[in-house]
């Protein structure tokens, strides 16, 4: 559809002259995030009707754990998409951070906490290196992170000779298998906690606002006194740290730091990485972000996959159904939005 008509949708609302007034709650009900919540509820009802096991404790626990990681990967990408760039190296950095942590625990013998910190620092450092290369070279983040994905992953494989680190502190691995009240994986709480921090960053902090401005319009931001380059480096650094967090979640879950945990070159992470923020309403062109949206988007996709697995739809055809379901989901949301805008509700 044309951008022209899209204009109508982006308008936020308040005090029309004819006297309709939207309070914050109503605004939320009209938002993208609410749309996702509706979709999640609708699909949850469908899945649990078709397969009651969907709501079993184990199934919910497993869903929570998988989505915790997918959402975290989504956050890691989101923070770079905000700048109008992208980070193909999320997976590579996540694995490097986790492997560094594994090495610190196993080979150096550190306690898990400093090892974790060390690993995250490596993640942040690698991310920042990407940022600096992008800013200095003036090349698009796509090419830079494409190259560094290969380099970082390659160095890691060379140094480790593709061997895993298994001597992970039991305290740390226990975390990945812990259940709170029988259903809640603590990892999900970590993800939500980090989500809240990110939300505060973008909504309440000067830094977050500057990042958004730099992402939406670098020229305008620069002329308004924002160090656009610095923001880009920051975001890539933070993206690296978050990728590291996702990596450590997998370490804690699998009880080992393994080079293949994100696939060849870390590419397995790319899909959840993009899907969660984009479904959540983060603009690929930068400058607009929804932390809650990313969280819900990541959850929705994980849920669709796990629902389909449970429904045992035709073995090899499953991907087809997943794709159709995804289309159905976005079309449903589109219908919701166009209904609202036809009736001038938005």
């Amino acid at each position, binding site marked *: 559809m044309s951008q*022209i008509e899209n204009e109508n949708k982006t308008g936020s609302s308040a005090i029309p002259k004819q006297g309709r007034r939207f309070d914050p709650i109503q605004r939320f009900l009209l938002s993208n995030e609410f749309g996702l919540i509706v979709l999640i509820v609708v699909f949850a009802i469908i899945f649990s009707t078709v397969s009651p096991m969907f709501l079993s404790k184990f199934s919910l626990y497993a869903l929570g754990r998988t989505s915790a990681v997918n959402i975290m990967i989504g956050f890691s990408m989101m923070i770079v998409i905000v700048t109008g760039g992208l980070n193909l190296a999320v997976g590579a950095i996540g694995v490097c951070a986790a492997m560094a942590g594994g090495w610190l625990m196993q080979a150096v013998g550190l306690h898990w906490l400093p090892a974790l910190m060390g690993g995250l620092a490596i993640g942040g450092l690698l991310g920042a290196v990407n940022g600096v290369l992008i800013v200095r070279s003036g090349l698009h983040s796509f*090419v830079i992170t494409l190259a*560094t994905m290969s380099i970082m992953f*390659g160095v890691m494989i060379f140094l480790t000779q593709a061997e895993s680190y298994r001597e992970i502190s039991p305290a740390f691995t226990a975390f990945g298998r812990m259940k709170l009240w029988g259903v809640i994986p603590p990892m999900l709480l970590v993800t939500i906690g980090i989500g809240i921090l990110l939300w505060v960053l973008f909504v309440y902090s000067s830094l977050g606002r500057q990042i958004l401005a730099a992402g939406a319009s670098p020229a305008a931001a620069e002329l308004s006194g924002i160090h656009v380059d610095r923001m880009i480096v920051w975001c890539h650094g933070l993206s690296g740290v978050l990728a590291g967090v996702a990596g450590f979640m997998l370490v804690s879950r699998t009880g080992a730091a393994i080079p293949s945990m994100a696939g060849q070159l870390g*590419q397995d992470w790319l899909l959840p990485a993009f899907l969660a923020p984009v479904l959540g309403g983060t603009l690929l062109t930068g400058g607009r972000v929804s932390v809650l949206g990313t969280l819900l988007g990541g959850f929705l996709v994980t849920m669709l996959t796990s629902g389909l697995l449970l429904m045992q739809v035709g*073995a090899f055809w499953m*991907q087809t159904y997943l794709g159709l379901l995804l289309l159905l989901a976005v079309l449903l949301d589109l219908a919701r939005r166009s209904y609202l805008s036809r009736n001038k509700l938005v």
Partner: protein
Amino acid sequence: MKREFLKQDWFGPFIVTLLAIVIVGALKPSFLSPFNIQILLLAISVNALVAFSQMVIIAIGQMNLSVGAIGGLAAISFAGMMEIWGLPWPLAAVLSLGIGLFAGLTNGLLCAYTGISAFVITLATLSVFKGINLGITEAQPFYDVPEVVKWLGNATMVGPIPWLVVPFALSAIALWYLLFRLPLGRSVLAVGGNTHAAELSGISVPWIVVFAHSVSGLLAALAGIMLVARLQLGQPSIGDDWLILSFAAPIIGGAILTGGRVSVGGTCCGVAIVAIITQVLVLFNIDPFLVQVVLGGLILWAVSVNRIREVREQRKAAAGAS
């Protein structure tokens, strides 16, 4: 006139390609042996179509994540129709191209008339197309590829130039002519350059989006079919690795991800650079554990050589102005 030449988008990547050929050729003379040139051209021919398929979508400022899935589907359809239905290969090829076109058309219609970002749409259709592929093949290849097709995939025309260069060269020329000489192609780039302005000027944006996606689907299918000829079997995993290359080559070739600017020549050079790098890794017997590091390093080298040239051009222009 000479200055104009230097300013072309493809010029930088072209220099990098030349440099790479000269350096590698000097260090390893076997690099320039006819057989190796043939291998290189084969790789370039197929990969260039993959890159073109994405380039057309980059031109309108969108992304097509489903290029590989479309290519894979066309590939197994091609091989499958010959093996199961016993269709003659030209008919199977045309039908498979039709499948690619249809897949692209579907992408285009969904993007144009729902307003949902192409990223999400093509991600979903990627899953649909790949699922159909796996559903049909159950991950088993089709083996009965007629000898003619196998021959086409490997035979050479003159000297070391393989037949597969023909569809590649024709597509390249057609695309160049379309994008830079025909009003339709200019409209494609206009939509990428500024969708809103294009619409206000009376260009039918939805139709252009549908058109670009259809072309993209067609090119991806062509690449898939060519791969069947080259690999001599219908592998269901054809296309799985295309995504990154499909973006990397046009971007190395000077395309801008936000749309409106692509270069056919540059994209070809981008493909050539990637192919040469791949060969270098083999020719110089790089430790397998270091291959990825060297690969990344070479990509950085290639893009920064180009970038340094650009910066120098800009400086010169600025100096000339004062």
